């Protein structure tokens, strides 16, 4: 592939991107490791560099995405050029476990030396383990109004408690 880079890019500078991928909730650690390996392979080939990779755990989605109510969030930050982003997005479309992805240009013209961070193997492993963090289960939510119904005597108090709980969520 011909390297047609933007003339706005300064010589030797790279672009910093961040990407969020949402994986299907049943994705296993092995699946995540496979995805990591394939992305890292691409980055090596396209001369990019991974700066950070975080696993935000299994979260409730604000709306259903491909019939999933929950998803595992992966957050990537990397240096590279737009061909790398195009390749990674192509890869994400091919992986069935990825239900949503979004890549965003954080900063154009970044001196690669100004971003010394790299991702260690330990961090990669950590990102592959799915934290036990789970957003409030739907069953809990259904159970709450029933409780407050029982205590209809002191309405004002229970209503106050309820709104507080909602704020925390």
């Amino acid at each position, binding site marked *: 592939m011909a390297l047609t880079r933007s003339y706005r890019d300064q010589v030797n500078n790279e672009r910093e991107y961040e990407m*969020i991928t*949402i994986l299907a909730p049943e994705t296993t650690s092995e699946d995540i490791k496979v995805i990591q390996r394939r992305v890292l392979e691409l980055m090596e080939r396209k001369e990019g560099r991974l700066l950070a990779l975080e696993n935000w755990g299994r979260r409730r989605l*604000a*709306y259903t995405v491909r019939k999933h109510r929950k998803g595992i*969030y992966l*957050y990537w930050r990397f240096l590279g050029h737009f061909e790398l982003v195009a390749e990674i997005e192509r890869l994400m479309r091919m992986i069935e476990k990825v239900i*949503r992805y*979004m890549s*965003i240009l954080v900063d154009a013209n970044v001196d690669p030396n100004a971003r010394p961070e790299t991702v260690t193997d330990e961090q990669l492993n950590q990102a592959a383990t799915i934290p036990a963090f789970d957003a409030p289960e739907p069953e809990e939510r259904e159970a709450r109004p029933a409780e407050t119904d029982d205590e209809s005597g002191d309405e004002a108090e229970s209503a106050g408690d309820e709104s507080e709980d909602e704020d925390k969520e």
Partner: protein
Amino acid sequence: MMNDKKPRRFGRRKVCMFCADVTVKIDYKNPQMLRSFVTERGKMIPSRITGTCAQHQRSLSLAIRRSRMVALMPFAVNE
């Protein structure tokens, strides 16, 4: 004569929250913060109500739209 006119403004003028506190960053990854700038239905609140300045309202709306893309915030809440 002047007293016949309806008073146009009362109370304090609203100040842009992001100009007042520079440490607060507008970030699509922080839906908790963005939530105070949308209605319960998930619609963006106009800056004339929140008092956000034009520059910050612009980045705010971009952040909310990005946040919606990755399902951190809802497009619409139907209940």
